[in-house]
């Protein structure tokens, strides 16, 4: 196992991963400083300047309510990111614990938990999300719950797989020999060694979650107007696709770029952590 510094060095040699990290970092940064970039409010309407093409005043143009598209795209990043992050955080934590206990403990809990996960994995994530939102009612919280639920089986499967091999390591036996409890071994010795895998999984799942969140808002189940959310923006602007394409192009690009960045980063990290691909 190498040091963190050595890992960063190798990461910097993978150009795509660096590009992905930079893209993702800029999306984060832009979301954070949105109020300082734009002098408009995301929900401030101005009916006099409806559907204006990009200009010096409105770099990305204005939408059907005369709102500044750039501002809405910037604020939309906040909403998309926070939905994706909280969903993945909740689902990832639950999934990791389930996978850890199932893989380490084995037995009946393992068989039952994994069969349940298999069943949930069999449904397409968007269909599952629609079902959950039908029950909970549309809204941002429901989207977070839906994302969390579709993350659980993915994480628990991955973590379980890693734990199955990690629990056979000799240092686990050594920990048992010095008298650590099984719970102690799980959290001190097994989980930390599954961490690299969790990082890769998280960057890929964040991209997935952003897509799901936008899709749900697009079909009207997530963010509700006038919330500046990328999917919702696409939905309301698609009627003007021919006459005012800028209203839909920019939120669309925002989705594409953030998902691309996260995917590049995730793939790069996965390659780095795969010993077979190391030179």
């Amino acid at each position, binding site marked *: *196992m*190498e*040091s963190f510094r050595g890992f960063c060095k190798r990461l910097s040699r993978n150009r795509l991963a660096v590009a992905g990290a930079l893209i993702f970092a800029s999306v984060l940064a832009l979301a954070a400083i949105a109020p300082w970039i734009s002098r408009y409010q995301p929900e401030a309407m101005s009916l006099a300047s409806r559907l204006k093409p990009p200009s010096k005043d409105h770099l990305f143009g204005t939408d059907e309510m005369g709102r500044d598209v750039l501002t809405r795209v910037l604020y939309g990043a906040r909403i998309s990111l926070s939905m994706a992050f909280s969903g993945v955080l909740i689902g990832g934590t639950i999934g990791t614990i389930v996978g850890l206990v199932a893989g380490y403990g084995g037995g009946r809990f393992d068989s039952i938990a994994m069969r349940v996960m298999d069943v949930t994995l069999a449904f397409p994530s968007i269909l599952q999300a629609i079902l959950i939102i039908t029950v909970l009612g549309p809204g941002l919280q429901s989207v977070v719950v839906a994302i969390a639920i579709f993350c659980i089986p993915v994480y628990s499967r991955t973590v379980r797989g890693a734990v199955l091999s990690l629990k056979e390591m*000799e*240092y686990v036996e*050594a920990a048992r020999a*010095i*008298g650590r409890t099984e719970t102690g071994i799980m959290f001190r010795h097994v989980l*930390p*060694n599954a961490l690299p895998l969790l990082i890769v999984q998280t960057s890929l799942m964040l991209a997935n979650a952003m897509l799901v969140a936008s899709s749900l808002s697009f079909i009207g189940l997530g963010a509700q107007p006038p919330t500046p959310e990328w999917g919702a923006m696409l939905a309301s602007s698609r009627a003007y696709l021919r006459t005012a394409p800028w209203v839909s192009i920019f939120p669309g690009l925002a989705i594409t770029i953030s998902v691309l960045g996260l995917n590049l980063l995730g793939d790069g990290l996965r390659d780095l952590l795969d010993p077979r691909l190391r030179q």
Partner: protein
Amino acid sequence: MTDALLEANNLVKHFPITESLLFSKQVGAVKAVDGVSFHIKKGETLGLVGESGCGKSTTGRLILRLIQPTSGEVFFEGRNILELNHEEMRELRSDMQIIFQDPYASLNPRMTVGSIVGEPMEVHKIATGKAKEAKVRELLEVVGLSAYHAKRYPHEFSGGQRQRIGIARALALDPKLIVCDEPVSALDVSIQAQIINLFQELQEEFGLTYLFIAHDLSVVKHVSDRVAVMYLGKIVELAKKYELYDNPKHPYTEALLSAVPIPDPAKRRQRIILEGDVPSPINPPNGCRFHTRCRYVQEICEHEEPKFRDIGGGHFVACHLHGVSNDKH
């Protein structure tokens, strides 16, 4: 045997082989250890030798209860450790430690050497904070490393150094018994000598008792007081080191000893070449387990399992050639 620190009686470990489609069903068992008895006296080193797969490492783990035996008894200082509950067992672990064969796999790559060596003290709440750090530095120096190594990670060390880290971790709790599971097999020959000498120094300094598992007969001869020879899950012979090496009674021990290289090209000795492979521990031969390869095989060997008995002066052997009255050999 009042001076025995550890006594194992008729230890058995069968690993079940299961087949599962919907419901798992046991279809057989690997008889890894099948009725092993021995004792280790306080302060001595018992060597345990045998081929790969004969059950030596399993035996080592059984006496520490790292694996739950199928049946049998293990007495440590007179207490049957198989009757202890989890909490009592965890406490007892500070008295019995293990050193592993592979110094690369037995250290958690994500922990610093300091936290690896300090972990036992933390778990048993012996020392924390500054006191723990001081003890870690002391232990590292005892095993021939330096105090500043505590901040480093295992991958920064060589095999021999890593094995020293493993030894320091085992010593952290002042154990009485240490099971050394092929501790030098993974090391270079030049490093082996250093580590073996370290084991002997530590034994003198801390009054340790060792169960020394190895497949290298010369190493075992160097470190042990008594030696047990295992074949296919059973101990076939156990005697004082010189007695065993100079006067082996069991045909398997004889063959094993004849394979030890003599570091003198002028000397020659008759090699006993064993025919065939070790039979499968899933389905071991009836009678004496060695009869399929033994050059003195008799009819009785195929039907009746020889008893493991003392043929005088603490020399135990399980062979029909060495019956109580008719010593034909």
